[in-house]
């Protein structure tokens, strides 16, 4: 299988591990991820206002360029922004008209591209059973807390990835690589997000709640798909649990971590 792949700004800089372990693992699983040429930053946050056009164009460009192949995202924020933009292109006629009017594409775009997160690729394209069969170094005995945060699942009706209040995709992933998932109450609550810029105290309070919740429920480590979650949990939370990108554990399990 071949997909277009959108890495996003942070995976090229502060979150290189999230990216390179994902590429190595996809290759090991027989999937080719072709990085989109000339992709532009998604902007980090979906602008909810319906009259915001320019802020959504970089996502539309990535979507439009992936019509034939489908698009795989990895960073939670890119995933959220691009999927919400795609939904708006398909369902908000006035917005789509303005975008198409500006972009002057040969074929107007109306949300036809299928966008999936890397985790959805593992679940729906590879299959967690096939992934489990490909594991060389199972993470036996590791108690792993899946941290979904806010952007991976919500709004559930738009992202359509998993049940936003009782998700299981990362827990199923953890089982597939041989680990033991730890369920804890704060796994889908916000870490404080971009407030790490101007209100560190808030980011610290929120991320500490998340990490304490994981620790109290017996986790040895936490995993995430979001560079900003990883930052807040490692820099701003007061707990001491190690936090990894899920792709690092995937590469380790598949024996392709270098």
């Amino acid at each position, binding site marked *: 299988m071949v997909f277009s792949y959108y890495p996003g700004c942070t995976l090229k800089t*502060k979150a290189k591990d999230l990216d390179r372990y994902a590429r190595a693992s996809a290759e090991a699983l027989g999937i080719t991820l072709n990085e989109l040429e000339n992709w532009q930053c998604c902007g980090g946050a979906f602008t909810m*206002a*319906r*009259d915001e056009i320019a802020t959504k164009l970089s996502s539309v460009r990535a979507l439009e360029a992936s019509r034939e192949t489908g698009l795989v995202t990895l960073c939670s*924020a890119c995933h959220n922004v691009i999927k919400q933009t795609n939904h708006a292109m398909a369902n908000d006629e006035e917005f789509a008209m303005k975008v198409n009017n500006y972009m002057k594409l040969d074929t107007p775009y109306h949300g036809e591209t299928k966008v999936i997160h890397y985790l959805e690729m593992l679940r729906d394209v590879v299959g967690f059973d096939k992934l489990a069969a490909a594991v060389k170094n199972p993470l036996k005995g590791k108690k792993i807390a899946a941290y979904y945060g806010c952007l991976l699942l*919500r709004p559930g009706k738009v992202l359509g990835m998993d049940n936003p209040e009782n998700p299981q995709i990362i827990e199923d992933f953890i089982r597939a690589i041989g680990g033991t998932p730890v369920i804890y109450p704060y796994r889908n609550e916000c870490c404080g997000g971009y407030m790490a810029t*101007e209100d560190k105290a*808030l980011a610290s309070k929120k991320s500490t709640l998340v990490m304490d919740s994981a620790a109290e429920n017996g986790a040895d480590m936490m995993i995430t798909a979001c560079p900003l979650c990883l930052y807040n949990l490692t820099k701003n939370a007061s707990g001491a649990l190690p936090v990894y990108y899920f792709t690092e554990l995937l590469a380790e399990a598949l024996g392709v971590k270098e």
Partner: protein
Amino acid sequence: MNNEMMKEQVIRMSGVNPLKCMRCGKCSGTCPSYDEMEYHPHQFVYMVEKGEIDKLMASPSIYKCLSCFACVERCPRDVEPAKLVEAIRLMVVRQQGQNHLKANEIPALLDNDLPQQALVTAFRKYTK
């Protein structure tokens, strides 16, 4: 602009119908920034309904929404309060000289690990 015109503008931008709200308070109950806000998510809904846009525009609460979509997801009536917070913040930052985050403030916020994602998100939320 008077409050009535601004109310219409906020409703058009957000696509939210505040009249759907049944005042259950679940949005504020689930908001991770609740403690930091002068006006809480449920108050945004009824203050927009009452047309008190100027008060909301003047409140620092508009910079506290994390855009985590918890209130959007959990509202039993699909009112989606975060969209009102965003529309009101945009009414402010779209005014000349009203950017909440300025480029020259960035160096002081940086550390070696701060992901680009945090900065681009803050810029998208706080500036035009």
